[in-house]
Every structure is written in structure tokens, then in C-alpha cells.
């Protein structure tokens, strides 16, 4: 019975110590984070891998701007990372193990059932480490899924814009060229078509189009010399009943207005006709 009470006290003490130590360390880290004390962050977050990710973000951003990362910054981040790593995976487990061994020695030598100082420190740190790294991992998994899904959607829109720009350049060229060189006149596109106010053509009727996941249509108004290119994607747009230029319904669509008469050549005057549907929509 005496042993059972002792074991219960031991477990309760571990949990309480862990909670108190964790809350105070998070508060400390939050405070120091504002002051950008990476070192303390690495030591007390027990997730120094975050710093490794941060270091690579800085390297990637420097690569983006064509500059090299300052070597002092590079080495300071590396040293902070490895210090935090050693603290979390070497010092803390060692303290925890030592605490248990010391306590066992103490209890076998002495009638009193106390705990060693290393046991208190080791237990507190190990609980902090377990809670912290579990939380950091869960948050990382959650953010990983969302972040890269959003990045893929953004890349899709960028690709659509690039495709549409290429098509716009080709169409502007066709509108500039005389007929004997394969050109087309605005009047051909804007001519009244059985009373319809809007004429629609497939881009491939005018220019060679490589295989693509996008459909591009040429749309013109018969009452004014207004020619637009509409790109329709395979992915869903925000407006589910949107009538796409290629005859589809509810798909992502982007449009530009051609300006063959001035230097701007074309403009995203209509921007997103039907913006890409995202998780938050």
C-alpha cells in the first residue's frame, strides 16, 4: 500500500511539474520570440528542427533574390539548431534516466521514499519535451497539408496566366499581320453572327495550339471592336453555375482583353471570370 501511494505521488508530481514547466517555458519562449532569441526558442521548444526549416527558408529566399546567405547568420543558426537538438535528445533523456537511477539508489539506501533532484529536473524536462514535440509535429502535419495544397492551386493559376499570355501574344500578332501573311482582321471576329451579340471561336482556328489542360476561346462583341481570350481550366470555379466560354459549366476561367492597337498588347481587364475554388470557399 505504502509503495502504491508512493508511485501515485511520483506520477502526480511528474504531471504537475510537466504542466507548470511547460506553461512557463511556452510563456518564456513567446516573450523571447518577440525579441528573436532563436537560441532560447531552440532550447525550450524541444523542436529545434523548426530552426532547420527556418534556415532553409532563408536560403531559399536568398536563392530567389540571387544572393548568398550571410555566413555568420548561417553558422549561428546551425549552432543554435544543434545545441537545441542535443539538449532535447541527449541531455533531457540523460537527466530523466539519471533521475530514475538516482531515485532508485536513494530509495534502496534509505527508508524514506524521496526523489532525487535529478529526478525532478529529468521528469519535468521529459514531459515538456514529449508534449512539445508532439504538439509541434501535429501542427506541422496540419500546416503541411494546407500550405502545399494552397501552393499547388497558386501554381495552377500562374500556369493558366502564362498559357493565356502566350495565346494573347499570338492573337495580337495575327491581328497585326496582313492577310497574305496569315493575319486576321478585327472585322472578321466582330462581324454580326445571326443576330448574336457575342461571337465565340476556338483559339486553334487561328493559331497552332500545343496540347494543354486548358481550353482557350476567342470571344468578341459584334457591336464593338472588343476581342477577348477566355481560358477555361479543368478545375472547379467559385461560381458553380457559371457558363464557361468553351461550353462547360462552373469551371475556373480567366480572361484578357486584347489591345493590338497600343503597346500594352493585352490586359487582364476581366481578371478572374470565375476564380479557382479553394478549400476556404
Amino acid at each position, binding site marked *: 500500500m505504502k509503495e502504491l501511494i508512493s508511485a501515485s505521488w511520483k506520477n502526480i508530481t511528474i504531471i504537475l511539474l510537466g504542466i507548470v514547466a511547460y506553461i512557463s517555458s511556452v510563456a518564456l519562449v513567446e516573450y523571447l520570440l518577440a525579441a528573436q532569441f532563436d537560441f532560447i526558442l531552440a532550447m525550450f521548444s524541444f523542436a529545434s528542427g523548426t530552426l532547420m526549416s527556418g534556415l532553409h527558408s532563408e536560403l531559399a529566399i536568398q536563392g530567389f533574390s540571387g544572393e548568398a546567405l550571410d555566413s555568420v547568420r548561417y553558422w549561428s543558426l546551425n549552432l543554435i539548431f544543434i545545441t537545441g537538438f542535443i539538449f532535447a535528445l541527449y541531455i533531457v*533523456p540523460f537527466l530523466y534516466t539519471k533521475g530514475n537511477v538516482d531515485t532508485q539508489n536513494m530509495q534502496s539506501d534509505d527508508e524514506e521514499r524521496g526523489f532525487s533532484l535529478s529526478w525532478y529536473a529529468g521528469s519535468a524536462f521529459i514531459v515538456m519535451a514529449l508534449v512539445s514535440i508532439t504538439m509541434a509535429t501535429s501542427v506541422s502535419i496540419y500546416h503541411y497539408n494546407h500550405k502545399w495544397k494552397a501552393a499547388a492551386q497558386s501554381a495552377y493559376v500562374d500556369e493558366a496566366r502564362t498559357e493565356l499570355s502566350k495565346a494573347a501574344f499570338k492573337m495580337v500578332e495575327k491581328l497585326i499581320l496582313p492577310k497574305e501573311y496569315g493575319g486576321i482582321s478585327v472585322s472578321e471576329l466582330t462581324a454580326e453572327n445571326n443576330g448574336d451579340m457575342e461571337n465565340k471561336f476556338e483559339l486553334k482556328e487561328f493559331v497552332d495550339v500545343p496540347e494543354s489542360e486548358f481550353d482557350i476561346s476567342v470571344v468578341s462583341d459584334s457591336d464593338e471592336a472588343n476581342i477577348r481570350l477566355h481560358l477555361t481550366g479543368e478545375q472547379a470555379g467559385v461560381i458553380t453555375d457559371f457558363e464557361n466560354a468553351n461550353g462547360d459549366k462552373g469551371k475556373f476561367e480567366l480572361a484578357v482583353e486584347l489591345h493590338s492597337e497600343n503597346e500594352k498588347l493585352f490586359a487582364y481587364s476581366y481578371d478572374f471570370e470565375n476564380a479557382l475554388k479553394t478549400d476556404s470557399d
Partner: protein
Amino acid sequence: MKKEYQILLTNVVACLVLYLVFAYLELTFVGYGLALAAASVFLYTLMKAVRSKISSKREYKIMAGVMGYLFAVNLIFGGIQYMNASNQHETLETIRETIDTNIIAIDIHQDLLTTLKTYHEQESGSQKSIVHIFEERVGDRLGSDRVLKSKNAAKMEAYTIYTEMKGDTLVQLFTVTNISKGEKENFDNYNDQVGMIQIEAGLTERGVDYERVN
């Protein structure tokens, strides 16, 4: 605990040296992976060393479980950080490439298509050649080294446009990026760089031939 202190010290030194060597080689994630492997060796050795000092089997199992969990979660966390870092690197490279290629396309087409337009709008009889019109249009932006300066000076840091005229009927532009890498790493660029994006464009009275060659 003397033996355990020795285990701690030797393993910490080994981990530190291993990581710093790879950090020096700028292979930080390889160093991170090896540091994790070294940590697993340390935790295993430590638990083996204290096995005889913990009399309760249950207590020893709990300790081993805690160590195993701590290591496993750190391993998963490290894996996610690695995937995040490599995705971020790739995404930023793609964004840079997209921005550069789109700006180049606009920059080049503006000069070439407006030249083409001016050429075809001339009255018959007083025709200037397409090369002449192009040179008139770009004016001072075309240096004696045949490098065409962008209208926006800031863009010049991202890429360089070289011009070649063939007689008075063909304007050729060779654009090479200064930061963004192309698809083929060993591609020999027009300006003796290697592996950068290269876009070639030709303008005749029949139109613009525009192609990304790397």
C-alpha cells in the same frame, strides 16, 4: 553513473562533429538525418547501460517507451521539416522562373510586335526595313555591345537580352537569365553561362518566332 556520463559525452561529441561536418558541406539536412541516427544509437546505448540499475521491469519498460516515443516523434518531425524545406525551395524556384519568363515574354513581345505593327502600317513605296524600324524603336537602349536594355532598369539584373541582325530582314534576340536556372543543367548559354534559362526570338515581316530553348 560514471559509465553513463562517458556514453553521454562521447555521443554528444560524435553528434556535434557529424552535424558540423555536413553543415560545413552545406548539406544540413543530411547532417540532421545523421544526428537523428546518432541520437537513436545514444538512446539505445543509454537504456542498455542502465538496464541492470533499474530493478522494476515495469519502470524500465516505461522509460524505454518514453525514449522510443521521443525519438519516433522527432524523426517524424524532422521528416516534415525536410519535406517543407524542399517544397519551399522548389516552389520559390518555380515562382522565380514564372516571374522571369513572363516578364521576358512581355518585354520582348512589346518591342517585337510594335515593330511589326509599325512595319506593316507603312505606306507602300516608302518602306523602311524591319531591322531599321526595330533599331529606331529601341534607340539608345541598344548598346554598342548589342545588349538591349530593358525599359525597366531593374529587370536587367534578372536577365540580359542580346541582339543580332541578319541583313535588314531578321532581328534575333537571345535572352539569358542571370538567376533562374533552366531545365538542362549543362546547357551552354548564348553568353557563356551554363544552365540558365534561354529564350530566343526572331522577328521577320512574317511575324515573331518565339521559343524557350532552355
